[in-house]
């Protein structure tokens, strides 16, 4: 027989241990509850023995408190998870409905396909442009070589040229002027 509230064992009948709970707070609230109802004032006196009914009442009360605290813990956990999830908007795929998940899959697939097609097209375009740039480089180099060789030939022609002609201004001046036609 339990003689006082404070003598209750922490363990339940089935051997499980209740969660952390302040015994003094429990006792106070029980005493208040009992005092208000006026039916079981025995708990106020720790030395008087409790009846079976009082013990049963107390166990029911403890069970209810534990259920309430469980519900509160669940609610708190839910609120906590919402608070933790909302700022970064992390969406757990398991929490999404099937439609939303399917929609997200379609969007992701479309995005990847778009990247693949347009990316491949642009890649090949870039490759072609690079090849064209290579060809232009080759053409420019050969053009430069050609110009150099033409210049060399002109110099050679100029040095060995016997072609001389009188320019138009030599008539007015009266003295023939020897010019080399570079063309």
């Amino acid at each position: 027989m339990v003689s006082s509230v404070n003598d209750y064992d922490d363990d339940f009948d089935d051997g499980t241990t209740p969660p952390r709970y302040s015994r003094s707070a429990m006792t106070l609230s029980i005493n208040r509850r009992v005092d208000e109802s006026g039916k079981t004032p025995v708990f106020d006196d720790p030395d008087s023995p409790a009846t079976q009914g009082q013990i049963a009442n107390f166990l029911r009360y403890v069970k209810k408190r534990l259920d309430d605290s469980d519900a509160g813990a669940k609610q708190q956990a839910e609120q906590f998870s919402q608070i933790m999830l909302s700022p970064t908007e992390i969406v757990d795929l398991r929490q999404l409905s099937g439609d939303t998940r399917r929609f997200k899959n379609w969007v992701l697939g479309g995005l990847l396909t778009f990247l693949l097609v347009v990316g491949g097209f642009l890649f090949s375009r870039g490759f072609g442009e690079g090849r064209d740039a290579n060809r232009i480089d080759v053409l420019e180099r050969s053009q430069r070589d050609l110009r150099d060789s033409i210049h060399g030939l002109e110099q050679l022609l100029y040095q060995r040229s016997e072609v001389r002609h009188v320019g138009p201004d030599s008539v007015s001046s009266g003295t023939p002027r020897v010019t080399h036609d570079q063309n």
Partner: protein
Amino acid sequence: MTKIDPWRFFILGLVLFVVLWALHALGFALARL
């Protein structure tokens, strides 16, 4: 559930543009090797 954010689309477009441009440049650089 998930709020539709216009900025998200803007950033997505920006990322797409950069990725595609990088692919183009990669092709160009490979051809120039």
